[in-house]
């Protein structure tokens, strides 16, 4: 395997207590690296071999000096787009199972947590993170229902009024016609919580 080279262009990092957060401004992904993955990324300068990096991990974190640990880190960093060059073909997946390595080294619990681990998330656009209610959605219908019922909490007479019943009827119909499956929205959960009959 070639000496790994970390990608640093367009990436900024922030250190947490035992982790490193990397934000990739090019691909808009955020990554959390545990200590060993972070150590490999920091030292992957193209000059250190996989063997040298495994010795570094052993020296700094007490992880058994085995190249497979570095290969596991390289695989995860490469798949996350955090290396300059990465060829998945170079990595034999059978050799770099995290679970298998933990078993081989007799690591369990917190010790197993020392093996390289990278978690990634896509940074959303404002629209992705936003709360769109432009169509009839469960969220909107839910708000309608909640509004009606909250009003009913305060004024039972209103709950039985024509206005409330029309609102409630429209909201219920919106649920029934919604394009969103109930298993994704917990609609019946809120209906139960509000003391209304299920849809």
């Amino acid at each position, binding site marked *: 395997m070639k000496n790994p080279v970390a990608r640093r262009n367009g990436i*900024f990092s*922030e250190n947490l207590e035992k982790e490193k957060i990397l934000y990739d401004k090019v691909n808009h992904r955020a990554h959390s690296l545990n200590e060993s993955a972070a150590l490999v990324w920091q030292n992957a300068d193209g000059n250190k071999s996989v063997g040298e990096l495994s010795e570094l991990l052993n020296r700094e974190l007490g992880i058994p000096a085995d190249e497979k640990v570095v290969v596991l880190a390289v695989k995860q960093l490469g798949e996350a787009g955090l290396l300059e060059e990465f060829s998945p073909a170079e990595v034999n997946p059978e050799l770099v199972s995290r679970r298998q390595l933990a078993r081989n080294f007799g690591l369990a619990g917190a010790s197993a947590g020392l093996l390289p681990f990278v978690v990634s998330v896509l940074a959303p656009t404002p629209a992705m993170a936003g*709360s769109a209610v432009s169509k009839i959605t469960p969220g*909107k219908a839910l708000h309608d229902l909640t509004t009606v019922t909250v009003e009913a909490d305060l004024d039972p007479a209103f709950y039985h009024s024509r206005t409330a019943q029309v609102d409630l009827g429209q909201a219920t119909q919106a649920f029934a016609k919604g394009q969103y499956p109930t298993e*994704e929205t917990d609609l019946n959960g*809120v209906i139960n919580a509000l003391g209304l009959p299920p849809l």
Partner: protein
Amino acid sequence: MTGGVDADGEPGEKIRLVYSAYGVVFALETMADLLPYLPSPLVPGGEELPESDASVPAFRFFRAHTETGELIFSVAGGDAADTETAPDVIAAAQLLESRIHRYVAAESEQVVFVHAGVVAWRGKALIVPGSSHSGKSTLIAALTALGATYYSDEYAVFDFDGRVHAFPRQLRLRPDISHRIASHPSRTPGIALVSLPVGWVFGLRYSPDAAWKPKRLTAGQMLLTLLGNTVAVRRQSELTVSFLKRALGSATGLQSERGEAALAAEQIVRMIEELG
């Protein structure tokens, strides 16, 4: 305020108001008689400015008619280029409010907006990040029913010091009934909700057959859970990471699938009581 006509040519009192919220200034153009359908303040934590600045971006909220003559309400302005319409004034007001909130959340450089539900529990913020339709409003309502204080079911607002500010979405009551119903105890407009340190972050995913198996999140995973729901992270990633890092200093993060909201709320409360 000036006299004029609305977008459909109907006479009325046309008004232009300028607001400021979290360092974002914007205007609203509408008819005076539509104003009672909007919440006040228009953005939680925001205020109306006395001067009328013609240069700031404007949102528009007017009546219109379809080709067949039906009355509709139109909403425009902000980050979305299109004009949205609704047949009902309350629905249109909701569209406008959401649009304005999205705009402020995306543009503010004073605070970081994370799409999340928030309640206060024992003096700390309990945050449930999640996108729309993830059921977080339901869960927040269930937590409130167990004694938590409602802070938001839309955004968690983080300041420079990492404290979380309330962003309570207000009920939009029809003017014909608002004189009878002042407020709801769990969502009292104008109540003083102080900013809080973060106590807990729950990364939850609804599934009808879910088994409650909470797993501790590391600080990094907790930060990623928030980043994945942060509105302006792409535009101001450094600021976002630094604000959120500060916020999570002493927070506990947990992740699990969850079932119905009422049950999940009980499980959450039991869990945080056990954790002390």
